[in-house]
């Protein structure tokens, strides 16, 4: 897939223009063409693209770009700013009813991920707001949809109200709400059947459910991979139901998710959550400002930073930094670091968040099992060896024993110990910039499959520009 980022595209357009002292309106037009294609490839609706380009062009024609020595960067900056403005600066919080039961209605096309996200939402809101959730299974049409919700409920230990498929959804919802009261559940999430936006009978059913349940939130599940049609879907559901927010699902795919921009631009419905994987805790609050760079194919440094701060315990990190400074780093510390990084999610996912890395990663196979191998090797060391790494690095017989114990080859053990030694040295020299050390240590060392140069490229790009 030739999904170049907009910055690359603009760079190419500009190269075509080199040799001229100053750029003119035609050159701006040329760049706007690149912006246009880039947005269309990200599945932004063509109408949105048109309006957007018009705005950007007006701004780009100003002095700032025309006189700039780096017009490409200036245009990119304008595009980025405009996108961020359109997407909204901050995450829109979910409406929770502070004194009573919160009711959430989920709607969407077939296969957009409603049932899965009903489960995810229940777990997320229970954790975040300390509420007692109940799921109502109102999808009586798709075979086994009720079973699916029941299974999810069991996995999450959330109660599911279901009446099979013989009662009408409206009735099930009504009874479910009453049931929630008797069980003191103060969060009710209603899973409805997927439907086409043009299916009037089924839309009416949703309208009926809405009037019965009087939901505080009506969330529309939208597949992040949706193309031009996303706008139509959002508009039609919004017309019928007055949607209060969107869940952008399957955002862990490699889509650039221009649908998010289209929906926001055309309907002004805020996107509140995004689904980031098949596991039931993989739901995140949607940060619209970060989506801008993704749509432009420019990675997402902020999410990376967020993940790091969320999962790395500061006290732990400080403690470790101290030990490092004193040269005490041993295999126990190594293991601890490994676990911190593992908590942040898959390596490939993490690396994909680094600007410029997305494309390269497509062809790189990162063996996530490497972690397990390293853990196995360290697990086969004695307590003494873990505390004092020098014991191993000088002893062939110890390495052989560890190799046998862990089931990994001698070479692997050797590689790990020598890696460990280099790492120790590197880290000592890095101590001057201890804030970013965690992140740095994560790279380079644990992913021997990664070409070093590329890692460095990503690192270099995000090092200066972002606060940490």
């Amino acid at each position, binding site marked *: *897939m*030739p*999904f170049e980022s907009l910055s690359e595209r603009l760079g190419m357009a500009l190269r075509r223009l080199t040799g001229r002292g100053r750029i003119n309106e035609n050159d701006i037009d040329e760049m706007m063409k690149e912006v246009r*294609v880039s947005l*269309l*490839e*990200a*599945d932004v609706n*063509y109408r949105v693209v*048109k309006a957007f380009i018009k705005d950007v062009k007006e701004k780009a024609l100003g002095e700032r770009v025309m006189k700039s020595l780096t017009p490409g960067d200036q245009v990119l900056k304008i595009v980025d700013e405009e996108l961020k403005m359109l997407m909204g600066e901050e995450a829109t919080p979910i409406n929770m009813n502070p004194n009573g039961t919160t009711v959430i209605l989920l709607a969407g*096309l*077939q*296969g*957009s*991920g409603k*049932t*899965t996200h009903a489960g995810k939402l229940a777990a997320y809101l229970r954790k975040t707001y300390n509420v007692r959730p109940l799921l109502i299974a109102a999808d009586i049409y*798709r*075979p*086994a*949809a*009720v*079973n*699916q*919700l*029941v*299974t*999810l409920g069991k*996995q999450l230990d959330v109660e599911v109200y279901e009446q099979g498929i013989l009662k009408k959804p409206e009735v099930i919802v009504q009874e479910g709400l009453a049931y929630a009261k008797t069980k003191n559940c103060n969060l009710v999430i209603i899973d409805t059947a997927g439907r*086409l*936006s*043009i299916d009037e009978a089924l839309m009416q059913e949703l309208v009926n459910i809405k009037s019965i349940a009087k939901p505080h939130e009506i969330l529309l599940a939208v*597949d992040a*991979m*949706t*193309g*031009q*049609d*996303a706008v*139509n*879907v959002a508009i*039609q559901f919004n017309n019928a139901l007055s949607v209060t927010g969107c869940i952008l699902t*399957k955002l*862990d*795919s*490699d*889509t*650039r998710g*221009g*649908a998010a921009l289209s929906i926001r631009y055309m309907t002004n419905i805020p996107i509140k959550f995004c689904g980031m994987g*098949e596991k039931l805790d993989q739901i995140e609050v949607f940060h619209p400002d970060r989506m801008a760079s993704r749509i432009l194919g420019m990675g997402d440094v902020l999410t990376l930073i967020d993940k790091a701060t969320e999962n790395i315990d500061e006290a732990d990190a400080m403690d470790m930094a101290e030990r490092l400074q004193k040269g005490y780093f041993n295999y126990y510390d190594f293991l601890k670091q490994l676990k911190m990084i593992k908590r942040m999610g898959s390596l*490939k996912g993490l690396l994909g968040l680094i600007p410029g890395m997305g494309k390269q990663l*497509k062809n790189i*196979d*990162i063996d*996530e099992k490497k972690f397990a191998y390293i853990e196995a090797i360290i697990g086969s060391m004695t307590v003494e060896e873990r505390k004092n790494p020098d014991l191993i690095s000088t002893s062939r017989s110890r390495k052989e024993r560890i190799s046998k114990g862990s089931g990994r080859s001698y070479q692997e053990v050797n590689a790990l110990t020598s890696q460990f030694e280099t790492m120790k040295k590197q880290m000592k020299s890095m101590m001057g910039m201890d804030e970013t050390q965690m992140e740095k240590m994560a790279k380079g060392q644990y992913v021997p499959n990664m070409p070093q140069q590329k890692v460095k490229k990503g690192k270099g790009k995000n090092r200066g520009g972002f606060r940490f």
Partner: protein
Amino acid sequence: MGFFSIFKKKKKDNKALEKANKYRLGMEKTRNGLLNKLKGLFQSYDDITEELFDDLTDIFIMADIGVETTLDFIEELKEDERVEGIHTPEELHPIIVDKMFELYLKNEIVDTSLNLKEDDLSVLLFVGVNGVGKTTTIAKIAHRLIDEGKKVLLAAGDTFRAGAIDQLKVWGERLGIEVVTRPEGSDPSSVIFDAIKVAKEKKYDVLLCDTAGRLQNKTNLMKELEKMNKVIQKEVPDGPHETLLVIDATTGQNGLSQAEAFKEITNVTGVVLTKLDGTSKGGIVLAIRDRYNLPIKFIGLGEKMDDLEYFDLEDYIYGLFGEEDV
């Protein structure tokens, strides 16, 4: 099963007419939208101008025909226009339709029929991202094959998603056919292994294998698919006879990435385009054909069991761009 016999009878009476009708109904929104746009476009221009081509580009893009494919197409169209020396926008219309055919056919004979063995077991594997309608598609294809007199077995290879096995079981009951299952969380390859064994023992004609939806950028899941393929190949050396990539008609540019990734891992032999009954155009399949040379085999036009048709290029393109009275 009285329910189905009604359909069968109706179908035998005027199958062709019904099929055309179904396309028309299913693609009504698509056709109306595009047709009106095209008409409006041709009426609003007196001349063939650069702006007209720009607008034309928008119409193609709106149908989710890939950006690159569209740009190439328009570029070729411009060249064509010069060659034929036409002057009014209306004259462009037939050329556009012509070129759509060319784009899809590429001077090949595109065979949309399924590669089924006459007197031996055929194994069909269904792959795709989450929520595209794989399980429903399998049920629809099973229904069609049963109609054609085949003995069909289903394998519940989606052992991951909650309720997926039940979903296929319900379809199996409705169709009155056997479904080979294992508990949720089992290795999907083992389900397929079991199913092949059953299929051989009981002399089934066709085995349809469901798989879990997987995003194409998840390496491990894609490897799992590779394993399933190997299991099939070991048991049925020339199988799978078809690996069908199921794509949701609302999918945008990501459809290309899907086609590329699945093609790399498995030998995808064709595309099933589902949910073409909404406002979506499914144009991405044209780009998929253009870029990855994958033919479309079936189109899902509705929610009913027999709302699945063999892909008919003529119907599709006329559905997209053709005359109102098709």
